[in-house]
């Protein structure tokens, strides 16, 4: 919204501060001036305002003048627009009936005859419409329409001018009948709903009440007689009608937030005065010249609300210390609230206390706390002291915070960057990656089809980020994300519950994370990813970690993984995730050329395990001895078999066997088809002695025996 300071000052001749100072003072009191544009010599400025939705009363020139008057303790004259005396007519006053007493609180109508519809001019100081309308983003249409728009800019009261001769009978404010049609001012032919609020005549709907006028009764150059409407409509009723028709107009904006019940006659006078400046006359009846239909119940809860009790002690309890020693006093409360239009009467309750009568234009003021806010606001927020409250409780971190930090820290050290991907994916991606099919949660109003469902897995986002990097010619990618995945449970077609679980995704392609000129770069492979996962798992206290492979026909491996290069990760028997090479079909669909390694860990499961607590153990002072065994194995025998054989050998017991590992795996021409060679390294060490040669010989033969039993033969 834009404000002309020239128009503002027309209401407040005593305002002596500069526009810049005014902008600053208004802003600090919550009437935010976002931008100032100086219009040059003597013409003041335009303020671009950003006014919070609760302060709809201040979204106009007079409303801001009220605020300025309160800030600078100035007298603000009430708005009044004198009209020429009406021409008496003998017939009955124009007929106005409010049928919907819950939705229309007031409807005023004034009949102007023989008016000249023409171009607007600069009507009076503070109403230079011809000069300034364009600057205020208003289109000049005709004096009648411009007058209603000016009333909106000046005092925030929506009004409407009808071509009186198109109205049959009188006005009825009613609900529409289902299926009734109305062409609105935007040229749209609308089919009305039984809940729509309309201003109608005795034959047809004329306008969507409080939202937009009708096409057929609009002012044209041929219009001679005008009916000026100024009314008060119920916020919810207007909101429902506007929403249903997808409309958001100045009028609906105001009515939805609560208009000033008392403003209608004033705005009607303003519009009439402007229209009559070019000729014409007011129809007068025995009852007066303004038909003013009101609903007492609504008047009581807007213009005549019961007073609010306010205690100084409560003001001080909520607001606390001020920078000056005096603080918020009786005088502060009385000055501020009086300046804002409240009437204060001393209350018999423990003094100092008041009974505050509220101004009709501030429907946002309803409770004691609302008045306390007004006091703080006008007094100035920055005049309150900065103090810290005392506190004696302990501080609790999230129970999984340490685990999250451990997992994150490990992956950072492994060279993975942390990423955050979008929360949504397409239904197809969800189907591909959901750990439990058929429980995907869809959005009712998605931003796009590609972002139509809540991600059931972090994999779609990870693949999208990898693709993004490759697209930008970044070929080495190592990313992880820790985030929420979603699954729903539905009953009778309604999503009842959405489960959220924390997950961790890893993704990598390109080269392994080592950078230097002298070492040959190598591709990041399955075992790099597995290693990173192992290192994360190693931070947790568990008895056993397994990496399983399932035959393709078992259908257990997720569809996004290469069936023969994928592993299920199990910690203490519980599946905690999957990892492997992206399925070539998925890689091809995304135009990935180099292999892409991906994995997902279910953190809700992993985080059930405690973190491993480091514990020292005795380190032997005696020399360790390493022995290597060159084994030949059938392809069907996996390392796991040898590993298990060594583990049971150690447990047999052979405590001197302190370490074993696969040192090298290779295939060469001297081996038979379907065989491979494995160099097994075993280390022996005792805590209490140097191992003797005969002992070592015995250990060695026990290793040979164990691996033989596992299916390996020694290479000779």
């Amino acid at each position: 919204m834009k404000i002309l300071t020239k128009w503002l000052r027309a209401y407040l001749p005593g305002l002596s501060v500069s526009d810049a100072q005014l902008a600053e003072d208004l802003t600090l009191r919550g009437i935010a001036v976002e931008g100032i544009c100086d219009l040059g010599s003597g013409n003041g400025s335009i303020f671009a305002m950003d006014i919070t939705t609760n302060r709809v009363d201040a979204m106009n020139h007079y409303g801001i003048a009220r605020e300025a008057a309160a800030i600078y303790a100035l007298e603000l004259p009430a708005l009044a627009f004198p009209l020429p005396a009406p021409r008496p007519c003998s017939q009955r006053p124009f007929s106005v009936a409010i049928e919907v007493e819950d939705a229309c609180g007031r409807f005023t109508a004034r009949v102007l005859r023989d008016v000249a519809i023409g171009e607007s001019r600069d009507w009076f100081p503070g109403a230079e419409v011809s000069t300034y309308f364009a600057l205020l983003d208003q289109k000049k249409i005709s004096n009648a329409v411009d007058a209603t728009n000016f009333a909106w800019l000046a005092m925030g009261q929506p009004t409407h001018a009808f071509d009186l001769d198109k109205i049959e009978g009188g006005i009825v404010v009613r609900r529409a009948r289902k299926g009734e049609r109305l062409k609105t001012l935007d040229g749209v032919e609308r089919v009305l709903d039984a809940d729509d609020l309309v201003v109608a005549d005795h034959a047809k709907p004329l306008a969507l009440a409080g939202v937009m006028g009708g096409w057929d009764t609009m002012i044209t150059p041929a219009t001679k007689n005008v009916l000026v409407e100024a009314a008060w409509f119920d916020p919810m009723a207007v909101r429902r009608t506007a929403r249903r028709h997808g409309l958001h107009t100045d009028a609906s904006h105001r009515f939805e937030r609560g208009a000033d019940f008392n403003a209608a006659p004033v705005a009607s006078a303003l519009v009439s005065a402007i229209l009559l400046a070019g000729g014409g006359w007011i129809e007068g009846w025995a009852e007066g010249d303004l038909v003013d239909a009101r609903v007492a119940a609504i008047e009581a809860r807007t213009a005549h609300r019961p007073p609010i009790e306010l205690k100084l002690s409560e003001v001080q309890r909520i607001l606390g210390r001020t920078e000056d020693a005096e603080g918020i006093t009786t005088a502060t409360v009385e000055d501020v609230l009086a300046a804002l239009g409240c009437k204060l009467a001393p209350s018999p309750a423990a003094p100092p206390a008041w009974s505050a009568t509220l101004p009709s234009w501030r429907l946002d003021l309803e409770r004691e706390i609302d008045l306390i806010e007004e006091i703080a606001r006008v007094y100035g927020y920055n005049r309150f002291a900065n103090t810290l409250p005392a506190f004696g409780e302990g501080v609790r971190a999230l129970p999984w915070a340490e685990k999250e930090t451990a997992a994150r820290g490990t992956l950072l050290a492994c060279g993975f960057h942390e990423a955050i991907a979008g929360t949504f994916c397409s239904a197809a991606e969800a189907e591909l990656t959901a750990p439990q099919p058929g429980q995907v949660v869809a959005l009712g109003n998605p931003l796009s089809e590609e972002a139509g469902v809540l991600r059931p897995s972090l994999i779609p986002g990870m693949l999208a980020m990898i693709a993004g990097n490759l697209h930008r010619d970044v070929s080495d990618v190592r990313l992880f994300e820790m985030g929420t995945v979603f699954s729903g449970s539905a009953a009778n077609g309604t999503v009842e519950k959405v489960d959220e679980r924390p997950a961790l995704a890893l993704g990598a392609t390109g080269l392994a994370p080592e950078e230097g000129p002298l070492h040959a770069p190598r591709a990041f492979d399955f075992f790099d990813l597995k290693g990173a996962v192992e290192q994360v798992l190693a931070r947790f206290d568990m008895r056993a970690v397994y990496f399983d492979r399932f035959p393709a026909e078992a259908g257990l491996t997720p569809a996004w993984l290469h069936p023969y290069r994928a592993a299920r990760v199990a910690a203490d028997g519980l599946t905690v995730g999957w990892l492997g090479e992206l399925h070539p079909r998925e890689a091809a669909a995304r135009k990935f050329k180099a292999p892409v390694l991906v994995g997902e860990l279910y953190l809700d499961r992993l985080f059930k395990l405690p973190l491993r607590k480091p514990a020292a153990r005795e380190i032997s002072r005696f020399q360790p001895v390493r022995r290597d065994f060159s084994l030949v194995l059938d392809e069907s025998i996996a390392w796991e078999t040898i590993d298990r054989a060594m583990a049971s050998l150690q447990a047999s017991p052979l405590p001197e066997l302190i370490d074993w590992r696969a040192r090298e795996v290779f295939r060469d021409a001297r081996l038979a088809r379907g065989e491979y060679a494995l160099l097994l390294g075993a280390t022996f060490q005792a805590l209490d002695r140097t191992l003797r040669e005969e002992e070592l010989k015995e250990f060695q033969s026990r290793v040979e025996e164990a691996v033989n039993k596992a299916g390996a033969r020694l290479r000779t």
Partner: protein
Amino acid sequence: MTNDSIPNLTAFDDESLDKAFAELRDQAKAVADAVDSSEALEAFRLSWLGRKQGRLNEVSSRWLKAAPPEAKKALGQRFNEFKQFLLTELLLELDQRSKSADAALKAQALDITLPGTRRLLGAEHPITRTMSEIVSVFAALGYSVGVGPEVETDYYNFESMNFPPGHPARDTQDTLVIASQERKPLRDRLLLRTHTSPVQMRTMELEPPPVRIVIPGKVHRNDAADATHSPIFHQVEGLCVDTHITFSHLKGTLDHAMKALFGSAVKTRFFPSFFPFTEPSADVQISCIFCGGKGCRKCKQSGWIELLGCGMVDPAVFAFAREKQPAYDPKKISGFAFGMGVERIAMMKYGISEIGQFYAGDMRFLSLFV
């Protein structure tokens, strides 16, 4: 190389002199055998032939001076022979030896100007990093950490935060809703939370006052992406409820927090705003961290940057909390709440201009935060 002092000479007959010089020769040879580089050679030369503290000088001054006149000639002769031995035989040989030792090392020379081999480290996401910074500032002020679900009910996201059904304030938060909710009552309908504020209510329902909690989390809105908007963003929410909590405590707490986050020179100012769940409500500006408040492009010449929203907890919110925890009696307790956008703070702290960079997983962007 040991620099034992030269023994005093007591007998000056030929035999004793020969013995003394033979010992000197052995000593020099023993030391020379250990010489294996040009540095060691230089040290050897200085220790024997140095002008001030060389051992040769010492021999000359101690032995020649102490010698009876009749022995001076014999002594001088032997001294000169020894000097000759040092200068020619020993030093020449040593020179050869050190040169070849140096050459062997030189063959192993490295171009130490080549870059070191780096095991590349991963970078914590700037949002995670900023969020934990904010959380630790408040942890130091006694705030525990809380979280809540990203999919919320209308009740927690709106109604209990004092956005009644049909309230225009709901329009300011374009909400992404879960499909197929029409059959449920409005309050139970599921949506993606538009702010972290619902965790205020979830916390109060579980714990009676006093409460001090800080809530980091992800939120979503139905906003098309541009330089400063994203359908995803993160907030850190705070809530402090106790007896005697005042607006001036709110000011002091946030002033302290902003100084902790942005440096002690930062100033704060508060001005009125509107949030349905707080009253009085305030927006907080900090003095521009780029220009120190003088006015620059970043702060649109104002010297101030708007950073967060806050206010005293609205009694209507306490009324909702009271349904489960009667201790939230707005006549007896009071509190404040605040919320800040993590992206905005991270963008300021790290000079990021596009909010979309946070969610692209771009390796080039993320590596800047290692």
